[in-house]
């Protein structure tokens, strides 16, 4: 690396080319894992998402069959709970990681980079936690609810 000769004198003028100097390693390297994850999750998501679309929009009554009862019926089976959980986690982490690289590539200042990534991480974590909570605690007929608000499957 070329030396910046004037950096020690008290009247040093900052070298305008310093911002182009390479500073070497920054932080730990998780980039390879992230790169591999993107490929693996991308492949899985193609199967998961198209399977989801096929089952929801094509089979049976098709798109007209989707209502509250349809979703409640699906989530009563652990298979669809896991399927949707995987879609939720992989989709959000895959998408969040993609947006993270875009922020790394395009945000110029370190402050804006930090703020944008902070917002992104909060949004991803909140959505994942809420989504997971809904998938596992979903109850189509909560006890003591106003009967007129409940779907037809809860009667009797």
């Amino acid at each position, binding site marked *: 690396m070329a030396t910046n000769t004037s950096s020690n004198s008290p009247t040093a003028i900052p070298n*305008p080319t310093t911002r*182009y*100097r*390479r500073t070497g390693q920054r932080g730990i*390297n998780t*980039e*390879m894992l992230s790169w591999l994850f993107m490929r693996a999750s991308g492949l899985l998501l193609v199967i998961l998402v198209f399977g989801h679309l096929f089952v929801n929009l094509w089979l049976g009554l098709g798109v007209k069959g989707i209502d509250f009862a349809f979703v409640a019926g699906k989530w009563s089976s652990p298979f669809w709970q896991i399927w949707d959980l995987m879609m939720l986690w992989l989709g959000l982490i895959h998408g969040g990681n993609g947006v993270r*690289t875009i922020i790394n*590539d395009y945000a110029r200042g370190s402050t804006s980079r930090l703020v944008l990534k902070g917002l992104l991480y909060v949004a991803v974590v909140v959505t994942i936690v809420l989504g997971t909570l809904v998938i596992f605690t979903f109850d189509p007929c909560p006890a003591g609810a106003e009967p007129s608000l409940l779907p037809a499957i809860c009667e009797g």
Partner: protein
Amino acid sequence: MTAVAERNEAPEAKAEEVPSFQVTMRIARFDPDSDKGHRWEDFTVTMHGTDRVLDALHEIKWHLDGSLTFRRSCAHGVCGSDAMRINGRNRLACKTLLKDLNIDKPITVEPIKGLPVEKDLIVDMEPFFDSYREVMPFLVAKGQEPSRERLQSAEQRERFDDTTKCILCAACTSSCPVFWTDGQYFGPAAIVNAHRFIFDSRDDAGEQRLEILNSKEGVWRCRTTFNCSEACPRGIQVTKAIAEVKQAVIRGRV
């Protein structure tokens, strides 16, 4: 890559005569001693069908404005000194014929992007060479030095033939949008030159180079936009070379 869509309508030329035409060069000027920053300046020159962009720059420097500053050495596409952004694309001025560009409109000539401009078309190449040095672009062989040549089969040589063609002109690195952002990415040229030694059967420092390129600013910042492959004046498949290095990093060996 040649610009086939751009055409040239020279005035009717007699047989055996090289057609000549008027062409306007719109050049990005930058004077480090003035506060004006960068500005565009047009020069109209009469050139011939056999002339290259570099000849037009010479015509301007030698006959119109001696203060125009650019780098060139061999002028025949070997030294890699005169990479510049011509009509928005990185090319060597000495390998770009004027007749292959659209001469009805001014031809824009700018310095390559992502590196600090020193004057007019000259940029400071030091950051580029810094990352080149970091990948150790020299043969590292272990064990006893042989008393004769280090032998290599034609197939072993073929493995890294493409990446031996690099002339370090920086056309690829300065066309990479990831390199433009903060200049911390190693850049295609450094990875190409690491590839040249990583896949060389005589070299023993492949793992060390892979470790260097596995860093945060290494091969994983590549977004496979193919700008580098398109910019390379030597036709090196740069993105392919980067992908091969990625594969080698994942497998942990060559």
